[in-house]
């Protein structure tokens, strides 16, 4: 589903945002001539107990055998009828609200008609013109990415191409058939491969935090697609072509694939040609994207409202209730942790994987503060795996372990200054290096001071003291 009204996309100016982004030499020089126009489509399998349109167990990755979670509905047997999973609808709306979307009070499911052996009914139940959620935004460090729409659909079965008894065969596993799948479509707000990565990482964090999907990318529980094209900086119209890169199953590949496309498309444009409108795949072995098929227009899917599923109407009150049930979201927690505990964003970002984690670490920081331990030091130790938290995790025990590992000796300030002065005086070469900008010699000074004092000193404090002395000596 990619129905992005051109009017909306056309209004965005992206060029100015490119300035501060650290890019590889190649892409930054390319981008001075062209700018990337990129929107993303991300699919995530919801982890409801049952499938989207039938009562079968939704657990495709842990199934002990193929085709054990199937029924007449998800096998597309004659007479099978879909019944929508209410939980999946509720979760889609939850995600929409978390991303600041408007929720359509009236929406419905549509049939997307196409043939493929992994699609048992010959159509996929999806949403076309009235998705559950529209117009949201995901904030990233590299700029906001507006959400065009979020809709709910069913996943396909899984094809496996194998050789059995010397014969090449294609096998179909229907355990995944009709598993609920949300699709999150952005506006073309993404202006670099790094931006795409930042957006998708943030999106995954939110989805996981809401506890509605595992987003296991290796298994295909979360799948990334990037619609890319290039234009000259200053142009506001959408380019006349669009290349969709599909089947990307890691953030790293996403970055590589987009950068590859920037290079590939700019070479074609340089030659005075227009890149073909098509769908491409990513091959990590070759480090290249490759042609999969010429892009079909949305209209070729012959969408029409699924007559088997009545339209869905919500009262605003129901939406408000879902909104009220939303937890405090990662972005907010990160800001608050910084304000309340001085915990750095890079640490918080990694600690907030789930609501349980967020709650537990918050309690940990409160107690740490009380015990005179800096929460950020603690957070840093956890992130860098210097502090392993034993299960079942206990707050008091964790703080104690950290304290023991990081015990520092107290030292008289005058005594310390004296030692520092001695070390500086004894190492004029290192001082000269420092003054020439080799600031990492500070580590050498710290080691010398520690050895001379014969004590385990607080690293941060020591660092500050030496810096102060060295700087004042100028």
């Amino acid at each position, binding site marked *: 589903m990619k129905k992005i009204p051109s009017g909306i996309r056309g209004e965005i100016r992206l060029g100015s945002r490119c300035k501060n982004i650290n890019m590889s030499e190649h892409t930054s020089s390319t981008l001075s001539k062209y700018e990337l126009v990129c929107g993303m489509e991300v699919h995530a399998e919801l982890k409801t107990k049952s499938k989207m349109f039938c009562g079968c167990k939704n657990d495709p990755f842990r199934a002990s055998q193929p085709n054990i979670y199937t029924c007449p509905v998800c096998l597309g047997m*004659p007479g099978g009828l879909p019944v929508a999973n209410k939980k999946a609808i509720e979760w889609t709306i939850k995600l929409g609200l978390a991303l600041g979307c408007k929720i359509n009070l009236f929406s419905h499911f549509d049939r997307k008609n196409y043939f493929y052996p992994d699609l048992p009914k010959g159509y996929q139940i999806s949403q076309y013109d009235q998705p559950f959620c529209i117009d949201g935004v995901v904030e990233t460090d590299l700029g906001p990415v507006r959400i065009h729409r979020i809709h709910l659909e069913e996943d396909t079965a899984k094809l496996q191409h194998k050789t059995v008894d010397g014969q090449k065969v294609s096998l179909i596993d229907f355990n995944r058939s009709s598993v609920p799948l949300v699709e999150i479509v952005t506006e073309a707000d993404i202006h670099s491969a790094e931006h795409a990565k930042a957006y998708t990482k943030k999106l995954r964090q939110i989805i996981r935090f809401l506890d509605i999907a595992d987003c296991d990318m290796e298994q295909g529980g979360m799948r990334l697609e990037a619609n890319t094209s290039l234009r000259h900086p200053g142009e506001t119209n959408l380019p006349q072509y669009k290349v969709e890169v599909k089947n990307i199953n890691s953030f790293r590949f996403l970055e590589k694939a987009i950068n590859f496309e920037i290079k590939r498309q700019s070479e074609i444009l340089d030659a005075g040609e227009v890149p073909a409108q098509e769908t491409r795949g990513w091959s990590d072995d070759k480090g290249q994207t490759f042609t999969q098929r010429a892009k079909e227009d949305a209209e070729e899917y012959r969408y029409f409202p699924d007559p088997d599923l009545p339209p869905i109407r919500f009262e605003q009150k129901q939406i408000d209730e879902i909104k009220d049930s939303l937890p405090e979201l990662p972005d907010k927690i990160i800001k608050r942790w910084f304000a309340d505990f001085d915990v750095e964003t890079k640490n918080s970002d990694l600690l907030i994987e789930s609501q349980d984690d967020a709650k537990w670490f918050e309690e940990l920081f409160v107690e740490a503060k009380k015990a005179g331990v800096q929460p950020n030091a603690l957070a840093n130790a956890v992130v860098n795996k210097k502090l392993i938290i034993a299960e079942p995790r206990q707050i008091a025990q964790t703080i104690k372990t950290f304290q023991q590992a990081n015990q520092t000796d107290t030292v008289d300030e005058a005594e310390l200054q004296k030692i520092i002065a001695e070390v500086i005086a004894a190492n004029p070469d290192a001082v000269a290096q420092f003054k020439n900008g080799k600031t990492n010699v500070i580590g050498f000074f710290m080691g010398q001071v520690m050895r001379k004092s014969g004590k385990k000193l607080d690293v941060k404090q020591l660092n500050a003291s030496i810096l102060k002395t060295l700087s004042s000596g100028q």
Partner: protein
Amino acid sequence: MLNTLTLKQALDLLQAKKISIKEIYGDIRQSLSQNERLNVYLTLNANMETDAESAVNKPLAGVPLAIKDNFCTQGLRTTASSTVLDNFIPQYESTVTKKVKEVGGVVVGKTNMDAWAHGSSTETSQYGRTLNPRNTDYLPGGSSGGSAAAVAADMCIAAIGSETAGSIRQPSAWCGAVGLKPTYGRVSRYGVVAMASSTDSPGPIGKTVEDTAILFNHIAGHDENDSTTSPQVAPDLTKALNQSIKGMKVGVIYLDHPGLKEVAPLVKKELEVLSTLGAEVEEAQAMDPEASIGVYTVVQRAEVSSNLARYDGIRYGNDRSFFGAEARRRIMLGTYTLSKGYADKYYLMAQKVRTLFLQDFERLFKKYDVLVSLSSPGFAKKVGASESSSMFGELEDMLLEASSITGLPGISVPCYRDEKTNLFLGLNIMAPMWQEEKMVKVADAFEKNTEWNTWRNPIGK
């Protein structure tokens, strides 16, 4: 002959133990072999007698029923009269047949139909046409032609059919039987091979209005497997029997249509009985039924093209090369009307006109309790009549399509018999959605006060 019993009679006698399962099935078996030429059943249930013996203490007491071959029956071949499903044995039971079996109904066999329910003649069946038991030179109508013929030929006690637009009422009319098409969403479609999902309505075909009411009671109601079924409790239609229709307002529609010149006077005369019984009968103006042909054709073809996409031969059945000419035509037309550039012109336009029909019926039902028309523009057509006409069904069902696309319930009762040909006309009585009792009231009164029901009034006696 016990196979000629009505459902009501059979239930009374079986429950009173005045007749045995063995006796009734003996007569059914005899009728099956005598009428083999009619080509009514595609698959017989070899265990019908044993199934019946174990059901004798249940409400339907083991009565023999004919089931249209588009209802999935676990372990019993289900083809929808298409060789695409020639070898298809369902692993599950449709809700309707499940309900019927639970209360002691027994499947005699699966009846012939137009392939995929595409047609009104049974002539699109890939297993040959069914003949009209009333006169074998003629067609039984369709698509539930096998079920209607099974009733008319007493090859069952009652039958289950399904209607998308006319497929219960038109063959019932042509075969001189009673066909009840419930409100869309009243009876579950789960396990019924889908034709046009937005209008498919399973329903009973019987020998009397009472029989269809009894069967309706057993199959109606919400089904958690079909989200288009209504959560409302279905009415007990047997309570609508033997009621006065005095003061009921009856609007007569479509009789002035030019295509009905020959039969209209016959029906008008028959409608006088309703006035005699105290109903207020008057002619009413409804939207031109010819507009409904276009709407129905576009919507139905669109849904068909999508509904038949699953028959790819990968998981079950034969591949697409087994589709017959009519199915291919419908798939192509439906695909076309949903395609880029045409969906607005055809599919969306059809949906808009559909809304106009809804509004028109709303207007009419403010004034009338029921609307009546003919079930079909004329008598049964001769064998072979559909073969050169790809719009055969649409024209034969012209008077029913408007009510089908709007989800209304309707019942067809015999209202005339031509002595020379022994062919029948059916009176179509329609009620507002969810108000089947109104039409049953009028249909029952009409049936009991006219001579046309051959089970109540055997011919020649």
